[in-house]
């Protein structure tokens, strides 16, 4: 059973992802957070196989989360999930080796399943 962490400050985004995963990957265990700092604090305990991480969040954004992971030697796989179509964001994501996918919202349920199966 795969463990999945959802980190997005919008409840609705987590709701959509959770719904998709319930339907398409009912076997996986999902932990969702709207507070990235709380999610980071739980990272060791949950030890997810995959983190769906939003970029644009207040206080701690997706890049801060990734930097903190690198600083503390946490190598969990990450799929960036963002509404940004900006090339700058896509280029920045290539700097982190644990990023396995860059998913642009809105996405299809199969997009999540595809990346989940790859890890």
């Amino acid at each position, binding site marked *: 059973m795969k463990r999945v962490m959802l980190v997005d400050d919008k*409840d*609705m985004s987590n709701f959509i992802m959770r719904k998709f995963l319930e339907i398409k990957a009912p076997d996986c265990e999902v932990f969702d957070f709207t507070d990235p700092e709380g999610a980071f604090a739980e990272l060791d305990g949950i030890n997810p196989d995959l983190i769906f991480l939003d*970029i*644009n969040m207040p206080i701690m954004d997706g890049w801060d989360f990734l930097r903190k992971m690198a600083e503390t030697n946490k190598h969990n796989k990450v799929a960036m999930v963002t*509404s940004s179509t900006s090339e700058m964001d896509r280029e920045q994501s290539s700097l982190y080796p644990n990023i396995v996918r860059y998913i642009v919202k809105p996405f299809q349920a199969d997009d999540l399943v595809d990346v989940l199966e790859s890890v």
Partner: protein
Amino acid sequence: MAFEAYARFSSRLASCITRQDLQNLLELHLKYLFNFSQAAICYVQDGKVQGHRVGKVNLMGSASVDQLDDFEAELFSEKIPLVREISETETARGWCFDSGEQGVLLICLTTSNEQTFLYNASILRLLVESLSARFKQFNLMEALDEKNEKLNGALQTVRFQHEEIHALARRQGVELAEKTKDIRSKNEELQQIVKFNAHGVREPLSRIMGIMNVIKITNANMELQELQLLEEACNDLDQALCQIIVRAETKLKPHLS
């Protein structure tokens, strides 16, 4: 005696710096070289006449050959010594020393009650040669002064233009810096708008589209929770669009007023 007078004249001539010095010297010492009541020494070069008159007539300024009086003109044109009775009591004598490029006229006026005109031809020639050299020196110095003046004028012009170019360069530097600052500020603003569009506007829209996908995939009627989430996303999108309008208007206002 005459040579001694000439030696004194010559040594003082060497210390003449201005034409007025020369005039003063002639007034004081010419009478020791030969006797006259009035005398004129004219230096002719390139059609111009410069000269000194001793006696009643004052210093002669630069003039053209056309302005010579009849006696001087005849002397200059014939280039032979002339003696003429000007009146019952006055006699004019003139010599022209012409070397081709320049000529010197020496004219003396004597009155009948004076002694017979006495002169020494060698002294006259020496006098003319030394005066001729002095005239030439004055002319060269004056030409040099004139050129120096022109050069100074040109130097002033160059300095003025140099300062103008520097001022222009400074002004352009300031303008360039201001424009660069302006462009940089606009670039930053554009980046902010790009970021805002990417996240602030697309994000609520993506949520709306996401929830529609959820409704499609679950093939169910819209539940109250989904409807509330949809409403929340619509409100966020509306706010984002309002913010874009306000920001665009704020940026446009300075250009419209």
